[in-house]
């Protein structure tokens, strides 16, 4: 088993941490995992992405050109990864930042209004968690509970009080995605 995931968006959208949560969950499940960020030029700003590879054997390349799974939190990322996704793959798209329909029909595109959901929960910063939750629809190796445990175990102490809202964001993303999934032509 090996799964490659790319999470992409603007800096500040929690792209890197989103990937780390997945990595923690995979590790806690006894899987091998790599998390690798796009570390930008020696200066601020711009877009960010990270690649997470999960496998049950020694992981070779930590990078992937055509991932089967991706999350696009903004329009540039949607443009880029829609093109690059492996056929049959799944792309979670932050509907809040994207105003176009998918172009390809050989992939699953799941639209999630991440910003809206996060704001409903009461913390804009949780938009990454809604997307990660949504991704689980296509990542049966990791369960919602795994992510919750990962957050519990690895969220820095000072952020622990945010756990319930994080859980909620994960869950609402997941639930939304499952509904969407049924709509997506296979």
């Amino acid at each position, binding site marked *: 088993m090996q799964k490659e995931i790319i999470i992409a968006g603007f800096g500040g959208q929690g792209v890197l941490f989103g990937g780390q949560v997945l990595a923690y969950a995979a590790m806690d499940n006894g899987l091998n995992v790599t998390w690798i960020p796009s570390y930008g030029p*020696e*200066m*601020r*700003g711009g877009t960010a992405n990270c690649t997470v590879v999960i496998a049950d054997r020694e992981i070779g390349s930590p990078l992937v050109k055509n991932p089967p799974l991706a999350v696009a939190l903004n329009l540039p990322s949607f443009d880029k990864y829609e093109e690059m996704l492996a056929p049959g793959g799944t792309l979670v798209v932050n509907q809040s930042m994207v105003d176009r329909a998918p172009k390809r029909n050989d992939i699953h595109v799941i639209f999630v209004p991440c910003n809206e959901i996060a704001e409903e929960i009461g913390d804009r910063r949780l938009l990454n968690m809604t997307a990660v939750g949504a991704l689980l629809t296509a990542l049966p190796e990791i369960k919602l509970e795994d992510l919750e445990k990962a957050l519990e175990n690895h969220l820095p102490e000072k952020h622990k009080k945010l756990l319930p809202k994080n859980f909620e964001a994960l869950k609402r993303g997941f639930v939304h995605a499952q509904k969407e999934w049924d709509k997506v032509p296979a």
Partner: protein
Amino acid sequence: MTTDNLVYERPEAFTETPTHYCPGCTHGVAHRLVAEVLEEMGVVNKTVGVAPVGCSVFAYNYFDADFVEAPHGRAPAMATGIKRVLPDRVVFTYQGDGDLASIGMGEIVHAAARGENITVIFINNANYGMTGGQMAPTTLPGMKTTSSPNGRDVETQGYPIKVSEMLSTLDGVGYCVRRSLHDPKNIRLAKKAIRAAFETQMRGLGFSMVELLSTCPTNWGMTPVASMKFVAEHMVPAYPLGDYKVSDAVKQIKVQG
């Protein structure tokens, strides 16, 4: 009767490229002042700038002048090389405090000691901006940075270097002053100093440097406006503004405009 009149516009010495600096970073102000001065002196066309390694590594994208990019700290040596083969050009370096006062200490002291006819614009923002906010030689005592996480401990991490004070002990220096960019009045004074520095060079009166207290909102973790206040309240007391060396010959310079 009244007619329209343009009071201020973006200097022509700038290219159209927007800078990559963080919002509110006064690197941009320093750039603008240099551009205005070069334009007012009519020398853009015969200027060669030397960009450093630091946030201003891409300075060459913004000035409409010839430019080279130096290894970290070595801009004064490159400028020396350029000026020695092209003595009639205007040569300046633009350097951060990590670049000039840490790794490049040898080069700046010797360019100054040689009285190299170059102008140095020295941006003191009390940290290494580009690499994400590590301690610089200019970091204030007690100031937290990513490499002084508990605040700069002068016992183990040393004391700030006052570059203008230090360089002004050198006979080769024609003009060496410290200014700040934290409010309109000081920005105006900074511009005058930059003009004086370039005039020093044009007249062959030796090494000229303007140290500019500058902000780094991103790594200081403050808004741009709060950063300006930080400069006024903490940087200026630690780095007193003033003229550290103005040689007699430079004092004679009268500039119109």
